[in-house]
């Protein structure tokens, strides 16, 4: 198992060397390093590593593009991303391409080794932080309309029967601003008119 070839793609040489020595200490002997991601495609024509260990932010081409390329042209190669980034968008994009693992760069030795083993055995592994971020983003994108305090102020006064002009002078804002809030509420909720809006707001506890 430990004789399977691994390729580290990282423009940060010191980090790559560190990982290589860590892997060799744990019995992984066929480990190569590639520091320029642009040469990956041509390299994979001649070499066939079982696992790619890759960073996201690299100087000339990023790990997300490289992952997509590898998935498409060399679907048999497994991909483990090892990155500092915890940006949701990167994680989402990488998952879409179908990577096998994602480790945050401050992971400990044992976590790295066990992840590499898991993936080589056909499993997948993601740092707990990655899972948290994905969960949070799923929660946040529920897309339910929420009213801002200013919008609530305006809606409250509309519901009490005040005209736009009256509202503007009560809230010390311009008529234009009141109109913007009103329009935004309709656009957000997709409701047709203010009457529907008031009904919706009452029913959903916004007023």
């Amino acid at each position, binding site marked *: 198992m430990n004789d399977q070839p691994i390729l580290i793609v990282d423009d940060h040489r010191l980090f790559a060397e560190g990982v290589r020595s860590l892997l060799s200490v744990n019995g992984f002997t066929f480990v190569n390093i590639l520091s320029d991601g642009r040469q990956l495609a041509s390299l994979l024509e001649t070499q066939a590593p079982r696992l790619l260990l890759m960073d996201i*932010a690299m100087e000339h081409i990023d790990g997300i593009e490289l992952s997509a390329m590898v998935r498409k042209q060399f679907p048999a190669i497994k991909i483990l991303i090892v990155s500092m*980034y915890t940006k949701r*968008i990167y994680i989402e994009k990488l998952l879409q391409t179908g990577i096998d693992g994602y480790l945050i760069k401050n992971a400990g030795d044992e976590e790295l080794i066990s992840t590499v083993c898991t993936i080589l055995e056909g499993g997948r592994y993601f740092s707990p932080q990655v899972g948290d*971020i994905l969960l949070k983003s799923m929660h946040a994108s529920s897309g339910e309309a*929420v009213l801002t*305090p*200013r919008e609530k102020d305006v809606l409250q006064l509309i519901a009490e029967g005040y005209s736009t002009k009256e509202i503007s002078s009560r809230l010390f*804002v311009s008529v234009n*601003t009141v109109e913007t809030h009103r*329009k935004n509420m309709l656009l957000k909720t997709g409701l047709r008119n203010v009457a529907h809006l008031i009904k919706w707001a009452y029913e959903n506890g916004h007023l």
Partner: protein
Amino acid sequence: MLAHRSIICGISIILFHVCQAQPVSVYTDSIRTCLQLPRPDTGKYYLLLRLAQLPECPADTLLAYGHYWYNYTEKRHISPGRPEALYAIGLALYRKGMNPEAAERLYQAATVWERNGRNPLQLARTYELIAGIHKIMQRYADALAYYRLACRIKKTLNNEAILLSTYNGLGNTFRLLHQTDSAVHYLEKAHALTAGNELAKAQVSNNLGNIYWSLKNWLAARQWYQKALQSFETLQQPEGIAEACFNLGAIATQLQQYHAAIAYYNKSLEAVPTGQPVEHLEWIYEHLADAYFHTGNFENAYTNERAYDKIKDSLLSLQVQQSIAALKEKYETEKKEHALALEKERTARLLAANSQQFRFLCMLAGVALLITVMGFIMIRNIRRKQLLAAALAGLKEKEKQQLIQEQALKSNIAMLEGREAERQRIARDLHDRLGSTLSSVRLFMQSNQTGTPPGNSKIMLLLEEAVNDVRRISHDLSDNVLIKYGLEEALKDLKDTIESTGRLQVTLYQQAVDGLPADTASEIYYIVRELAANAVKHSDASRLFIQLLQDNRLLHLTVEDNGSGFNPAVTHKGIGLHNIEIRARKIGAQYTIDARTGKGSCFCFAIPLP
């Protein structure tokens, strides 16, 4: 600035008189019909006399009816009716601006009522009119005395509503005496009584606005002017609307809310009916030009500056006319004062009449002399104006060009400053966070604790920290996401970044926008980032709302927080707000700032889509 204001106030007083005299009521029509009858209907005299005292009745009608009723009471010996008639005549004369004559009749009426004590309400009204005349003649102490007399009587009548005019009069007199505390006190009392009387509400609100203006309390002034505007709009009174809008525009200028100012000034121009005094428009154009200039709309600024120049030129000759008018007025005032003095010293009437004749002759000679002098000045002015006009035009143009160049330079500098600030932030973060962590690692390595297990774990901890630092610093550089995945993702990423500081919960609501140019997207992104940074740094906000909604070809961006807010009039335009202004201008966005101390802030942008 204050000089402009006093002019406007002066005009507004004239305007109010003008609009009060507009015949709009059916009462007026019926009174007129009655007056045209071959023999007026004597049975209705008294009723019609009271009707004629309504503000919308023309003064001449009231005067005619006052005289009819007076003759009638004389003929029939109806003594209680006589002061009524005198009061009506006095009121009519007052409305016609014949103040000394009016005062004479009012004193007569007051004397009768004082003696018999039969009609305290009418007596109070008479005192108020006399006070009003004193006020016009700038004898404020006398005015106050009479208003107080009226106030004392009215208070005994157990009807608070009738005190409205008294309080208003007292407030205005104190205002003219620059005793603003007392003025505000009485005007607010008056305002509390204006329910159902829209015109009074408008005038009192306007007066309160004027006071707060003179105190430079812009927010309070704005509040009252807005109330006045609302009332004028209900009344559909163009002069009032124009004036209130102008005042609101001037305040918006003071608060540096130039877009709002432009809207108000334009509204004011729209409201001014044709044929109004041009000097009113002159100031609007000048202020409008100024506001457009501040928003960077130089084309409109220039157009309005031109309009201002045009009127100002015509005013040069107008000024001469005005100074003649002013002299005439002075003469009139003196004459009137003299007449009033006569009335007061009724015992010395004969002697006074003689001196009046003598003084009148002196005045006539004086006026003739003045007119000659003014004519001379007028001719000199015209010659000087012709010479100056050409030189001025050249200078103005040059000045404009220079200003435009300066403005462009300024915005470039601001952009650079923004970039520089970002660079400095990164440098500072690297130094403060990563630098110090790495230094501690080095120190630790130098010490002889390396190699031992506790020493190694300490180094591990420090290095871990360093890695985290780097991640945090690079996290702030979200620009890559914007370039690669567009605005929607960049805003989501920004939300994540802000929330990772643990200080602010961000509610992001955005709709997919089609056809958004890359430039616009990046400006929107940086605007949001700047505002979010402000919210984190300065406002103690716990929630931030970011909304990007599309309405036809307009994109509405709203950034709202629940923090401590700020007072836009006080807060110095830091680099942040300045950058926002420049970015908004770059993408043609109109924006408003709704910020109040303690009530959070809300920025609304309307961004045109191609």
